[in-house]
């Protein structure tokens, strides 16, 4: 069965410290992986997708098929990065998305 695992419910880091939000997936085919973010009192929104290989707000994520991981990284965390982050997988050939349980990131001053 397809599954997305985010092992940390809460991650606290100090401002300026590096941050890594972990995401592991199980899927036998070729998935598309995404990170979504929900800031306080705002809607859930797309942060980045693996096929774009882009950096958004300083965040990057590399798909590692060998480790079936798609960890989200930022070298220097900012207070405005505090939010709920969800990793998601889209099954190839479908429009069904499978989301992880989310990680709440708190960046401390």
């Amino acid at each position, binding site marked *: 069965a397809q599954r997305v695992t*985010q092992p940390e*419910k809460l991650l606290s880091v100090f401002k300026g410290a590096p941050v890594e939000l972990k995401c592991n997936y199980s899927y036998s085919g070729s998935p598309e992986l995404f990170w979504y973010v929900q800031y306080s009192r705002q*809607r*859930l*929104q*797309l942060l980045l*997708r693996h*096929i*774009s290989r882009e950096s958004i707000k300083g965040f990057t994520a590399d798909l590692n098929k060998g480790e079936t991981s798609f960890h989200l990284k930022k070298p220097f965390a900012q207070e405005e990065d505090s939010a709920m982050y*969800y990793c*998601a997988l889209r099954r190839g050939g*479908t*429009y*069904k*998305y*499978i*989301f*992880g*349980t*989310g990680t709440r990131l708190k960046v401390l001053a």
Partner: protein
Amino acid sequence: GAGVSQSPSNKVTEKGKDVELRCDPISGHTALYWYRQSLGQGLEFLIYFQGNSAPDKSGLPSDRFSAERTGGSVSTLTIQRTQQEDSAVYLCASSFLPGQGGTGTYEQYFGPGTRLTVT
């Protein structure tokens, strides 16, 4: 332009009653999705529509849940005989389908959600 809207924003209902949740997608978006967000459970896929048809209903938790979409636009999620475990935030999202709006533009845009509380 207007984003995805959902109504009501909050709904409190008694156990056993039926509820209808509404989603207005972004104009022109062919795909529409419903999710349930429960505390500690992340986002649970319920159903998606491609136009007016629902190719994948596998996420609906039970036969008390149903959804329809008319005119390729507004969608309604209906929960019959509500139970306390149905309490959650119900999110709707819409998107283009791949190729419809250009390469990679099938990003999902989410609505604000409907918070359902079953007492």
